């Protein structure tokens, strides 16, 4: 067993090389809707059971299915598009087969698709390297076929990555990973071959932990998101920060909550030094302009 992921070096939140974003923006703000399919009858995994109730878990299944039938259509074309905010979809790639309507709508909205595995009920725990590689390759092909897009980003289903997953992502040409939550800026990721960076995802500003685990009412959810933005916007004057807002249509797309999203997005786009970006755009900008400098600073012992 590993005592740490071993994929990143220590970088204190001081003295870092300055990050600048396009057009003098202080903060790169990106929204990551998790468009998922949880199977009605998935196989078991030794480390995690997909459902808490005996299968079929009708309540668990149908709650999540609401996201694809209703929530997505309410939050995406209506609320997000109204504010000019594109999504970077954390996609269970089988959605391309099950619900092509959703993929079509995402493409019309100029949203990025990245992989969140095939199904949210197929964990990476215990897969061998060939199996992981097969999933990554198949996901790349499916996204290309369904949308014409390249696959650049990755979030392992339920962050169930195994010890070698990040190495395989790099070897398969993935450019950015979201499996690590160690920072508010992109960081270099160490892999055995190839190149990979991490860009900030979030489990703090994320409707699953906030709304389900922490029992947060919608108004407080909005207040927390705004507080997160305010701090990172302020710090971004010194060096560019990233704020990710991960969403799940089955939660935020509920009629009693969607106005909270509207409220947060209105607040964010009301600031002038915000880069409304996608994951791919943040990764590309950082890799081109800041990665080498960060690596040199780390090599010099973070002076």
């Amino acid at each position: 067993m590993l005592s740490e992921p071993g994929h990143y070096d220590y970088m204190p939140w001081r003295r870092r090389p300055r990050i600048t974003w396009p057009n003098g923006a202080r903060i790169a703000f990106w929204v990551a809707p998790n468009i998922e399919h949880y199977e009605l009858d998935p196989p078991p995994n030794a480390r995690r059971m997909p459902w808490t109730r005996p299968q079929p878990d009708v309540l668990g299944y149908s709650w999540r299915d609401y996201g694809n039938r209703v929530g997505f259509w309410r939050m995406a074309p209506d609320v997000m598009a109204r504010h000019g905010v594109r999504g970077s979809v954390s996609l269970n790639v089988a959605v391309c087969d099950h619900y092509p309507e959703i993929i079509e709508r995402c493409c019309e909205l100029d949203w990025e698709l990245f992989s969140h595995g095939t199904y949210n009920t197929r964990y990476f725990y215990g897969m061998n390297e060939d199996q992981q590689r097969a999933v990554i390759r198949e996901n790349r092909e499916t996204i290309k076929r369904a949308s014409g897009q390249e696959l650049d980003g990755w979030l392992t289903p339920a962050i169930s990555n195994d010890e070698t997953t990040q190495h395989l992502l790099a070897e398969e040409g993935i450019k950015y990973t979201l499996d690590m939550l160690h920072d508010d800026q992109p960081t270099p990721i160490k892999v055995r071959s190839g190149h990979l960076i991490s860009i900030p995802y979030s489990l703090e500003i994320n409707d699953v932990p906030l709304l389900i685990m922490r029992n947060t009412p919608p108004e407080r959810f909005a207040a927390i998101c705004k507080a997160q933005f305010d701090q990172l916007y302020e710090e971004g004057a010194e060096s560019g920060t990233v704020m990710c807002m991960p969403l799940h249509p089955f939660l935020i797309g509920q009629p009693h909550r969607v106005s909270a999203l509207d409220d947060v997005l209105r607040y964010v786009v009301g600031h002038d030094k915000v880069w409304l970006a996608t994951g791919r755009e943040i990764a590309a900008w950082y890799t081109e302009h800041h990665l080498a400098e960060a690596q040199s600073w780390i090599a010099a012992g973070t002076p």
Partner: protein
Amino acid sequence: MKGLPEDYLYYPARRRGMDHEIYPFRALPKAQPVTWPNGARIALCIAVHMGHFPMDMPLKPFIAPGGMERPYPSYWDYTLRDYGSRIGVYRLMNSLTVRGMPATALLSAILARRYPALMDDLAEARWEIACAGLDMGRLHHSGVPLDQERATVQEAAALVRARFGTSVRGWHSPAHSESSDTLRLVAEAGFSFTTGWANDDVPYVMVTDAGRLICMPLSQDLSDQRMLHQQHLPTEDFTKAILTAHQTLDREAEATGSGRILVVPITPWLMGVPHRIRAFNAMLDSMMARGSVWPATMGQIADHWRAQNPN
């Protein structure tokens, strides 16, 4: 019916006072009155839980708050805690430094070796370093063999003293967990105060076979780990609770003429995240605005208390 064994209703430690010899009972009104510098009513100590959580930490006999709750390898849990040591603690340092306030770090000793740049910044910020064991995977409990526990205490003490010198004299057992030997081993390693028993607002003396320890207050009930992480309460419930505690202690100090101590236990991976740091700042400002506050390290408070309680 057989019932329970006969000695189940035998109470060998039933007597006036405690059911152990570590310290005597003392009711709050019997605590010796104390005064703080400039006649301050409240000695305020910000105690920062700087734990390191190895991804392969044992899950028995219990998982320390913040430990790996998801299946191995839990990047989720590991990287969120590590965020505290990379970023959260710097936000806390900035907040306290601009207000001229010190803090006491309850430090996993392993961090002294892992993150030397962070140690330099803590030293520059003049935070007091107290040793909080080796890391959150090396808990102290009755299942740990004595020799192994002694080695853990000695190794942890050596690591922090190698970086911060022999002035390190405070101890906190990670996750507030101890064996029956821990206090003796801590005294043996030359520590003069410990913090983690949640039973008083006023310091008191613990007696071990290896010498005495001052036990400093450290609440778990009123901590961000319990309220924000375990109970999932909103940030404002925690900051409001701290301010209410301050008000109560302040009134007691006024009424009794004896200074009171407020220890605020906070955690970089909780209070140091962007959406909470402003609430933390506002809480600090509210406390300081009340006046008659002496912001101090735990060691400074222990010294002042000891000088007025020489026995």
